[in-house]
């Protein structure tokens, strides 16, 4: 394994990633000096692009987000059947241009009318590619196609503004990954953040893993609110003083300063994957994590970046016999030896790492027999699982394929215990969806904190929630047009055929360019984050 030179870390004297050492291997792609992208934060010349600092910007979205009325209950026991969902705030993943503008322009309406609504500002690099709450729900991280990570922090409850709790504001922004070029294979490596996973908090700093197609990075996000003053050899501006002019010595003291949030890359786990990484998952032992690409799964230790264990390898000896690839993988939330991975054939394999070093032989194999009446050209594509998630209890797994969400009991392998149709009206449109590539969209699915409700996205900025207990489901829309602040979301309905009622939308008028692939649910409260292209919507449950 090759540990690339930590070009991304400027504090090489203090940073851990410099101490790991470099072992040169002939296969290592040379690090292209990354030019500072236009959107990189704080363009100080010595600052490398992947290290970001940002002042804690009070990005107030103005009266648009002011809460009114009674606050929502904090319990997640209500499920989705007894409450309604209100929009808390809509956040744009800000580019640097937007950030600078926002500092000057406090008036929300002006912002809304000028460039937030202006599609020319929504570049492809701003498309959100992953959303993840941390373990307490206080922080919400998003990754986008431009390789940036933006972390939002929940506003603290204050006596003056009791009702403002629940809003999320920008906490930190940094450039996690840069586009790279693999000279050996003549391939460009996208900087798009595929997944972000938080580590549980063990000290004052926050740690998260972010990955693109090839490289996983461990980032430390820490606050700094004090700085040392009173150096002897440097004056206040940092200029060196002539030692001859120093007559007295003083002890530097720490003085408070404006809060600054820094993000530093602590580990870079590179060069372990030939194929594109699609998932990462932190183990419940908090010491290891796994990264999965199309054909292999590697087990890493957080401290060791130049080695990883390969625990699953489904690459056939002859690539022409390839029939399935790994699409997602996740560790069991409590059992540190158990993990599952899903395949493009619609199967899930549960593996126990105690059985053998290489977990090619599964411990459990979950597959539902195919319904022969539904066969079509595209049966294989729509049965490919795009996401797999353990329930918080660890008893169930949920899988998402193109048209359905399925809940499986770990104790029953031959079929799922629940199947929910997300947008079955698309079944007759598969050919068109194949043509415009929508059939390859990888939707994610999430559990709520109590495992009673599951949520997944759809097209036209619709997202669906299914209550497992009451068997109720709802379709909601995350859109700018009909989302006034604190407004209750109106359930939407897609009319399949025949007579279209007044509020329904017909299948043919769905906008397939507006898709909700990534959603996240607060671990303990009924707060959800929904990513629609470059917008992040945060909704909160409100029970009267």
């Amino acid at each position: 394994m090759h540990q690339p030179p930590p070009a991304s870390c400027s504090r090489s004297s203090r940073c851990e990633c410099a101490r790991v050492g470099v072992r040169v291997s002939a296969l290592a792609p040379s690090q292209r000096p990354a030019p500072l992208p236009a959107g990189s934060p704080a363009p100080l010349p010595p600052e490398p692009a992947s290290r970001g600092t940002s002042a804690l910007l009070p990005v107030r979205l103005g009266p648009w987000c002011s809460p009114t009325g009674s606050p929502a209950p904090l319990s997640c026991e209500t499920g989705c059947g007894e409450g309604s969902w209100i929009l808390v705030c809509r956040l744009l993943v800000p580019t640097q241009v937007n950030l600078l503008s926002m500092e000057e322009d406090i008036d929300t309406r002006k912002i809304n009318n000028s460039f937030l609504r202006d599609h020319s500002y929504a570049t492809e690099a701003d498309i959100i590619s992953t959303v993840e709450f941390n373990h307490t729900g206080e922080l919400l991280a998003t990754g986008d196609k431009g390789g940036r990570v933006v972390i939002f922090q929940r506003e603290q409850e204050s006596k003056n503004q009791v009702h403002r709790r629940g809003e999320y504001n920008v906490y930190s922004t940094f450039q996690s990954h840069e586009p790279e070029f693999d000279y050996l294979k003549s391939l460009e490596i996208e900087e798009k953040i595929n997944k972000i996973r938080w580590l549980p908090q063990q000290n004052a700093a926050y740690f998260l893993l972010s990955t693109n197609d090839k490289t996983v990075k461990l980032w430390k996000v820490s606050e700094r609110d004090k700085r040392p003053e009173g150096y002897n050899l440097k004056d206040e501006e940092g200029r060196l003083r002539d030692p001859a002019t120093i007559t007295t010595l003083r002890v530097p003291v720490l003085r408070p300063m404006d809060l600054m949030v820094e993000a530093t890359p602590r580990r870079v786990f590179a060069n372990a994957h030939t194929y594109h990484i699609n998932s990462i998952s932190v183990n419940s032992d908090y010491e290891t994590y796994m990264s999965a690409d199309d054909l292999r799964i590697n087990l890493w230790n957080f401290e060791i970046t130049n080695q990883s264990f390969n625990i699953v390898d489904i690459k056939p000896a002859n690539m022409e016999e390839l029939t399935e690839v790994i699409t997602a993988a996740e560790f069991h939330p409590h059992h540190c030896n158990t993990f599952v991975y899903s395949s493009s054939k619609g199967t899930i394999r549960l593996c126990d790492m105690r059985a053998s070093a290489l977990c090619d032989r599964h411990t459990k194999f979950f597959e539902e027999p195919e319904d022969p009446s539904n066969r079509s050209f595209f049966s294989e594509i729509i049965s490919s699982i795009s996401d797999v998630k353990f329930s918080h209890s660890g008893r169930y797994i949920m899988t998402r394929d193109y048209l359905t969400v399925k809940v499986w009991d770990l104790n029953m392998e031959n079929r799922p215990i629940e199947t929910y149709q997300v947008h079955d009206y698309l079944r007759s449109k598969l050919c068109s969806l194949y043509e415009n590539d929508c059939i390859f969209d990888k939707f994610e699915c999430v559990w709520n904190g109590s495992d009673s409700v599951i949520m997944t996205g759809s097209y036209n900025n619709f997202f669906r929630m299914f209550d497992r207990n009451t068997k109720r489901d709802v379709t909601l829309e995350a859109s700018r047009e009909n989302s006034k602040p604190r407004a209750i979301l109106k359930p939407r309905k897609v009319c399949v055929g025949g007579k279209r009622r007044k509020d329904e939308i017909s299948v043919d008028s769905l906008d397939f360019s507006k898709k909700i692939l990534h959603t996240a649910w607060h671990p303990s409260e009924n707060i959800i984050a929904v990513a629609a292209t470059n917008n992040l919507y945060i909704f909160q449950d409100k029970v009267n």
Partner: protein
Amino acid sequence: MEFKLEAHRIVSISLGKIYNSRVQRGGIKLHKNLLVSLVLRSARQVYLSDPCPGLYLAGSAGTPAPPTPQPGEPTAQPPAGWGEPPPPAPRAAWPDTEPQPERPAVPDAPRAVDPEPAAAVTGAGDAFRGREEDTAEAAWGRVDRPRVAAAVAVSDVSPEGASVGCPPTREEQPGASPAADCRCAPRPAEAEPSAPPALYPRKRGAAGAGGGHAGCPALCSTPLKKPRRDGGEEDGEEEMETGNVANLISIFGSSFSGLLRKSPGGGREEEEGEESGPEDAEPGQICCDKPVLRDINPWSTAIVAF
């Protein structure tokens, strides 16, 4: 009949996707190309097993708009075939059933992507009609070494290994264009063949120049960059099917002149399936300002006034 049109259309769309995947940022995506190859395989299976074999759809630059495929339609096709997952095993049986080494003389051989070598096409052209889905499946599957063995007999291409045999043979035979796209269809996801792969692209490049495939020599430059692999070296030397897909594309690009132009724009044209009329929600549905108790749906409760 409609099925053949639909299958043919799907095949051309799939080829366009594979063609375009090589220029996509981030490299070729294994998962997507695998799925596309599966669709290709299914479509070809439908195409071949259709009872009217003489249909030659080449030359139709714009495919007539096929009827919207009903999910049940393909099942009207020989249903037995659907139940077959693409197994490696039948392919091993392929050399036994393989009648002839390539002679791509069948003019009415389906222009659809034909994964076997020309030998398969000739034999397949007639024999497949009567064969069971099993064999058709096997024929459609990615044939490697057995195929090469057949190919060796015809051409003087040395048996270098799986992927080597077919394309050079293709190039040398002018009439081979329809069949040249054989065997490559389900191979977009392939990586390094176990045989020395470096020879394969170079041979293609040389043969391609001679074969007059316009798109080929330029495209073959990419596989030439593949590092030579000594047999057995596994770690780290793996490719991501770049070379093979590039060859695949070059074959398709030059063969399907009627369906796909050689320029990259041609492929995109085929697969430009923009959703017609993705209008926004009707304005009449925006009504979140006033508190309204709409219906018994628990999700629509009173709105807290601002």
